């Protein structure tokens, strides 16, 4: 066993874990944050995407011990209390899911892409950036629509907060 400490969704966590524990296992099984899914377990499908120090990564292909001292954000860390993150709200609004299994990874990837590419992303860029996220319900069309809308909403969100 080995000790690990990191910050997950703003909360400091410390645990004694088997060195083999993947970040996604640590999140789901130790912290009970089951919003992050395990799809393929081979870094292809993107169901396990979380943000590690602000960047989208596949949590099935990182050891929890490699995240010592890091800041991790999962799908559970996006909403502000009961108010959905603009990207989450856009997925609901535009029906960007069918079964919902890929959705946490899709949303974490979408937020990361807006962080990197800005809120003005075009459809081509969005589709290209989703290369590492698979949806088996063939829901890409609405996912792309949702991300475009979520991206625009993310640009407006700070303004709305300022107005409140």
């Amino acid at each position: 066993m080995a000790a690990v400490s990191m910050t997950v969704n703003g909360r400091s966590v410390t645990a004694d874990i088997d060195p083999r524990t993947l970040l996604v296992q640590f999140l789901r099984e130790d912290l009970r944050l089951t919003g992050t899914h395990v799809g393929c377990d081979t870094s292809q499908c993107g169901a396990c995407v979380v943000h590690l120090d602000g960047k989208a990564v596949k949590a099935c292909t990182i050891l929890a011990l490699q995240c010592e001292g890091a800041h991790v954000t999962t799908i559970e860390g996006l909403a502000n209390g009961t108010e959905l993150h603009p990207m989450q709200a856009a997925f609901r609004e535009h029906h960007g899911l069918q079964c919902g299994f890929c959705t946490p990874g899709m949303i974490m990837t979408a937020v990361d892409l807006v962080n990197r590419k800005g809120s003005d992303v075009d459809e081509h860029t969005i589709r290209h950036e989703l290369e590492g996220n698979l949806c088996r319900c063939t829901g890409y069309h609405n996912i792309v629509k949702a991300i475009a809308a979520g991206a625009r909403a993310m640009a407006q969100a700070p303004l709305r907060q300022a107005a409140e």
Partner: protein
Amino acid sequence: MYAFAFHRPTSLRQAASLVGKLEDAKFIAGGHTLLPTMKQRLAGPANLIDLNAIPELAGIERSARAVTIGALTRHAEVAESKDVREAIPALAELAQMIGDPAVRHRGTLGGSVANNDPAADYPAACLGLAATIVTNKRKIAADDFFKGLFETALEEGEIVTRVSFPIPQRAGYMKFRNPASRYALVGVFVAKRAGEVRVAVTGAGANGVFRWKEAEERLKARFAAKSLVGLSHSPEGLNSDIHADAQYRAHLIGVMARRAVEAASNRE
């Protein structure tokens, strides 16, 4: 995964001393090859030495003659680096073509080079640009570094610290992806340097990355895609598998080489 002990040194010296002391130790950087291999129990090191907390391995430096990239630099950092984009745009484009955004946030230059996967992209850039691979012990020319499938000139416990890429006059990289895995079925890196042209091919060789000398000679006479018309690579010594046979790969080498030259020529 088989059980292992985990170590996280914070300096190169510590890492080197750990690997000298520990039995059956392996380095891990981005881990995007090693961890899947360990999950499948194709690798089961007793000790894993994580290189991610070593600051000496980070950073990109640009001089008048070369761009030197730390081994722990992620593919996304290379793709987005202003220095790389200005000095060697083909290298930034190559980094941008690896995997997907999440993979590029994690995978490293040093890991790719040290692993020498026959379908990896960076070995083609190293060979094509006549890069120098710098380790904690010595400097190795790319021509002497890549030895075969997953084999390099690295000795036991030797750590790649950075790679120095001489700035070419022109360069281009094109790859034909396996539609499922997105790895290169064939990737060709072409670079025009003072006094020579280099053409490096990845994904195709049964022995890993290699230089296509006939194409180099033709392009040295005239650096244009037209110079390669009618020249085809022999299927001899190329990979044949369920994804593509040797003949198809041979054909793709010609096509990708011409496209890479076009990409290099069209650059302002």
